[in-house]
């Protein structure tokens, strides 16, 4: 099986908690959009996507290539995006990163940080443009700023979960 870092230790990979933690944490990130605040502008960073990306850069082979389909659909439904937009963009992201990583020589945490930040930025700006909100650049700045500043934190939390999940 092509299970990435687990291929040398299949017994570990079959641990139940270790396998569902990434998907559950991504879904939890999406569910943060259910926070009970009402605001005139979008302020909540796309936590679901951020967790998804952090796991991707932590373990490049962990997500199967189709993982963006169910997780993106969940995100679409929970946060009220157009259905299909998350499925499409998340899967394309996975494919893009696989293609990119075949071309770069070195991969380290800095690559994950820059690529993740860039991706979130492109994703947010793209979603403003697609929904045709006239004043999106000004109105969306807080959301984008929060997302960029919180990305390293999400990365840390994913790494923490990664250490914990084999003991679940």
């Amino acid at each position: 099986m092509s299970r990435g870092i687990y291929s040398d230790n299949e017994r570990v990979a079959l641990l139940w908690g270790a396998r569902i933690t990434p998907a559950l944490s991504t879904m939890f990130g999406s569910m943060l959009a259910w926070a009970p605040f009402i605001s005139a502008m979008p302020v909540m960073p796309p936590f679901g996507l951020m967790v998804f990306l952090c796991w991707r850069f932590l373990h490049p082979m962990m997500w199967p290539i189709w993982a963006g389909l169910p997780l993106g659909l969940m995100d679409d439904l929970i946060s009220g995006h157009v259905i299909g937009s998350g499925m499409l963009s998340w899967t394309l992201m996975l494919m893009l990163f696989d293609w990119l990583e075949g071309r770069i020589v070195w991969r380290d945490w800095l690559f994950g940080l820059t690529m993740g930040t860039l991706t979130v930025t492109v994703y947010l700006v793209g979603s403003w443009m697609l929904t045709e909100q006239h004043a999106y650049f000004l109105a969306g700045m807080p959301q984008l700023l929060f997302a960029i500043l919180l990305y390293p934190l999400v990365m840390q939390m994913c790494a923490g979960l990664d250490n914990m999940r084999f003991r679940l």
Partner: protein
Amino acid sequence: MAPPNHRRPGFSRRAQYALFSGYVVAVVGVIAALLLIIAAHFDPRGFRAVQGVASDAGSPFMSVGRSIARLFGATDDVIAYYLTAVSTNDELKAELARARTRLVQARVIEAQNRELRSLLKLQDQRTDVVANSRLIGSTLADARRIAVIAAGTNAGVRSGFPVRAANGLIGRVLNTGAFSARVLLLTDASSVVPIRILRDGSPGFVTGNGDGTLEVRGLSAGARTFRRGDILVTSGAGGLYPPHIPVALVISSRGDEGTAVPIADPAAVDYVTVLGLYRPEKPADEVPTAPAQKVAAQKATTTP
């Protein structure tokens, strides 16, 4: 470190097939997602059942969380009240004195209005209240401005119904679940509301900017229609929104355009009312009114 090439699983046929089928699933999924987006673009209401279920799933979290948030918000306010008690008291007394005289004036005008209306044989068109509900959340991560209310099809809410707060219009229902519904707010770019200026009754319409402000355009081209401080109310034109609901306050104007802010702030409102669809009555009894309409039409054409 250099990236290990995991996507090449070696000589195992089984692993190669697994990888290949993974890509097949992904590509098929991407195409399906694209079709879903296109379908949603041409038929925005196509997936409202699915989206209704999704908003139902989220509504318990939202309403519990909102109660907790309100609890903390309330204690915050209480402390502030103690600090400003004396000055607030004085202000309120002065305000009350002013309000009393205005109330008497308003009562007189109301009585007069009733008399004039009965003289004109105008029928009061009451739009029925469908449901009263709490505003429990909004889409925080999505660029579209959508709020969630805690009433759905069980309470008779249907998509398209207008939603108002006590002090003004909030928006209209986008899709409904069994016990929750998503409401498109006025500030969303896809929301269009026909309005009148309260001052002189000139018509226009209001669209959202997406950043909490509204763009307002007049229908009479060229004229300097809007002034700062103008109050805009729904006109009822085209049905859907009932007339005379306060919508927005103009904060700046450029010719026949202007910028406005909604009067009812969804962030500050707890309770909203879902109204039934407004259907303006057709000009009934064509026979007596037809000549009058002709005269009016002629007047309109001769006086441009």
